[in-house]
């Protein structure tokens, strides 16, 4: 596993350097980086992790993302509906992998636009997640690679293909308990770097850097709720010198039902310990 991790980190680093090389060739770059005004968004995310066999689960996520517009400040209007599904493989209690697809529905939030109001976006994604206990907490490393086909709202817009390289570091620290178990309030700081590559990506390899802090509460072993605030920034695709910023309120529901028959549940989870 370590080797795999190392390999991916190297690939990410290499791509970063290559992209940086391209960026120097961009002509319209401003002399200093410019930051757009931050936008505010609200995300309601559901994360389902549905056990379907001893080693397999169905990863089902649906997100509703709202963003502010001039007419609808703060919570804004619906921007994206996001369906992410995958079949996951439980390698061990601490390591799992997923492979699946994403259908994202993008809504045109530009009130002045005459373009199409809704366009789909497709992705194939795979993910490698590693957990490590640390004292009473857990820390997580998540590598996620996405192959993404997007198009603009314009009538004749064509799909462009990009790859996304994402690494997330996250910790979950229980606040009122000595371990993460039901009836526990925890705080979860998290940082994710999203890099991108592809023909369309010339000077803006760093798509997004997300810094989040969430407060969560474990209701049962199968249900957790969390809410937090995320600051994000990243290069715009059009111009690598211009950075967009955002403040996002995020609300999460994590659920993990087990639809297996009772007799198949036994023994519970004992993979290799």
């Amino acid at each position, binding site marked *: 596993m370590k080797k795999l991790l190392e390999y991916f980190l190297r690939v990410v680093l290499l791509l970063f350097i290559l992209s940086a090389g391209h960026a120097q060739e961009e002509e319209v770059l401003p002399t200093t980086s410019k930051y757009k005004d931050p936008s505010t968004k609200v995300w309601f995310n559901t994360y389902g992790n549905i056990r379907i066999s001893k080693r397999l689960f169905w990863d089902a996520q649906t997100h509703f993302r709202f963003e502010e517009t001039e007419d609808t400040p703060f919570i804004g209007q619906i921007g994206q509906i996001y369906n992410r599904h995958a079949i996951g493989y439980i390698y061990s*209690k601490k390591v799992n992998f997923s492979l699946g697809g994403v259908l994202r529905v993008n809504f045109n939030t530009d009130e002045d636009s005459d373009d199409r109001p809704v366009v789909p976006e497709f992705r194939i994604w795979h993910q490698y997640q590693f957990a490590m206990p640390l004292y009473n907490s857990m820390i997580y490393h998540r590598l996620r690679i996405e192959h993404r086909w997007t198009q603009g709202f314009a009538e004749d817009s064509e799909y462009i293909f990009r790859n996304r390289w994402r690494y997330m570091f996250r910790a979950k620290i229980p606040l009122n308990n000595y371990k993460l178990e039901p009836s526990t309030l925890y705080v979860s700081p998290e940082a994710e770097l999203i890099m991108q590559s592809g023909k369309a990506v010339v000077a803006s390899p760093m798509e997004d850097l997300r810094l989040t802090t969430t407060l969560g509460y474990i209701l049962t072993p*199968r249900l957790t709720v969390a809410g937090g605030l995320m600051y994000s920034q990243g290069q715009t695709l059009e111009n690598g010198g211009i950075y967009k910023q955002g403040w996002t309120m995020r609300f999460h529901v994590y659920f993990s039902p087990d639809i297996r028959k009772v007799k198949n549940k036994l023994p519970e989870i004992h993979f290799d310990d």
Partner: protein
Amino acid sequence: MFGQEKLRYTGPFQVGSFVGEVDYTYQIIDGDTLLQGPFSMKRSNLDALLDQKDKTFSFLGVFENGFPNGPWDFQFGEFESDQKTEVVGYQYRINVDGTQHRAQGSIAMGKPDGLWTISEQLIEDSEVKETLFSSQITYSNGVPQQSFRIEARQSTLVGRFLRDGLAHDDWTLFSDENTETWSFEEGVLTQIQKEGQSFDIFLGPFKATRTVNLDKRFSKILKLQLEQEQATLLKDGINKLLGENGEHYKKVDDILSQLGESQFMPLFKAKVPYFPLDSIERTALDSIQENYAQASKLANGLLENTQLNLLKRSDSEAEFLYLAVKTINDTFLGPLKKVIRLNEHQVLDYVNREQLANRLFPKGRPSASIEVGQEGRSYQGPDHHTYNFAGDMMKSLGQMSVYAKQSMDHIAGVLYEKVKNEQQQQEFVALEEQMIAHINELNQQLDSIDSSAAWGKSILNIKDLAENKLNTYSSATASEGKLEEAKRLVTCLETFKKLAQNLAQLPEKELEIQEAYTDNVWNPFMANLMQEEVKKRITAAYRNVLLPYIQNQSGSNLDCSKADKLNQLLGALHKRMLELREEDTHKLERKLRKEKDPNTILELFNLQPLNN
């Protein structure tokens, strides 16, 4: 008869305890086997002789019409060998050591006739070393005649008979040390002389006499005439030798009577005075036998009663009565037993009653007021003043037996009651100790738990209840049913104690149930195992309905039978909860939704509800 065909049998044969090879001829007349002609039966075993020892015998003689008739020779040997052999001529010779009995003489139609010689000889190296016994008696048709001679190792008895077999004149035993002489007159033994002493035996005139055989019975009759030391003096000597002679004749008689008709026993005869029991005496004797049997059974039962033996150490009245039993046993039952024995041996008819009284009660006849122990206290049985043992001997003995039996009945009644009371007292003590032990354990139980805890109050209530019950019991007066009450209370207190223990253990049991109903669930988001309670409706019913119900029940209107039911319920509930964890309980869980009635829940759990 002579026309009948004679048959011959040769082969194995058994006569009494003798097994050997036989050779005889016989006739079957009217279905009966009658021995006829020569008879021989022998046995010897060389292997047995060489191995250890051989018992050999040989009987040779002649039968006529089933009666032994003619010359007979009986030999019995018991030999062992030194295992050295020698060939002489064409025969192997083995020397033997042992004893050889031999009886030789002539028989006329089953009765000894002519000279009979009986001998016992010690054999060493196949030669006669010593004659141990020898008797020579001449018979005429079974009746001993003229003079006889019986020799033992170191003594010789000589005497003579009248023609009808009655002993006559002096019978004298000559030995190295002394001589013993029995003087008969026409069959009546008048005097015995031994070691310079001389004592008269039967001196006339007699009302009546009877002719008896000079056998064991005669020696018993004789013994009744003698003082103790005289009897001891005469134990050996003529008495013994006559007995020994009788034994030898009996051996031969046993064999002959097995084979056919015979009256081989020597009929030495003597005359003794006769005092026949009259009908009143016979009735008294019957009553003696009956009363003696019952009284002696009671006496033995009391004397061997271990509890009574213990009780008499602490209870002086019991000790007194115990000693009274002993005294009655010695002074009444002992002599009565002797009388019964004498009757069994058929000698009562030959003893003078006064003589018998002197013999039975050398210190005089006992009184109805029985002196017990050293302190001069007397035991007086029921109606003691109506008894007088001074009159007619047999009648008095009969009365003694009645008195002894009644006294024994009375004493047994008193003593067994005492033993029973004592036993009851001990039972009470034991039961009360158990009660206290249970109460103490209850108190300890209470000390070891937090009385403010959920179950503390119930246990406190149980303890109060138990103490109340004990107080009620201890203030109750002794009565018929108190022992039963005590037994019930011990059981009840034990039940209370168990209930308290069970209740005190409940938190522990609850934890055990909780653990049993906890599953480890893998949380994919946290990537760890989390404990999850399963079958929550069952555990909720257990925790929120049943346990409070049981607590409530043990806190109010508790009695022994309810406590017992609660104990059973607690045990069964715990067991059932553990079973339900493993069972498919989907239906049950559905039914449990919203169910709050404890008895319904118990029924759903397949447990016996408390109220029925």
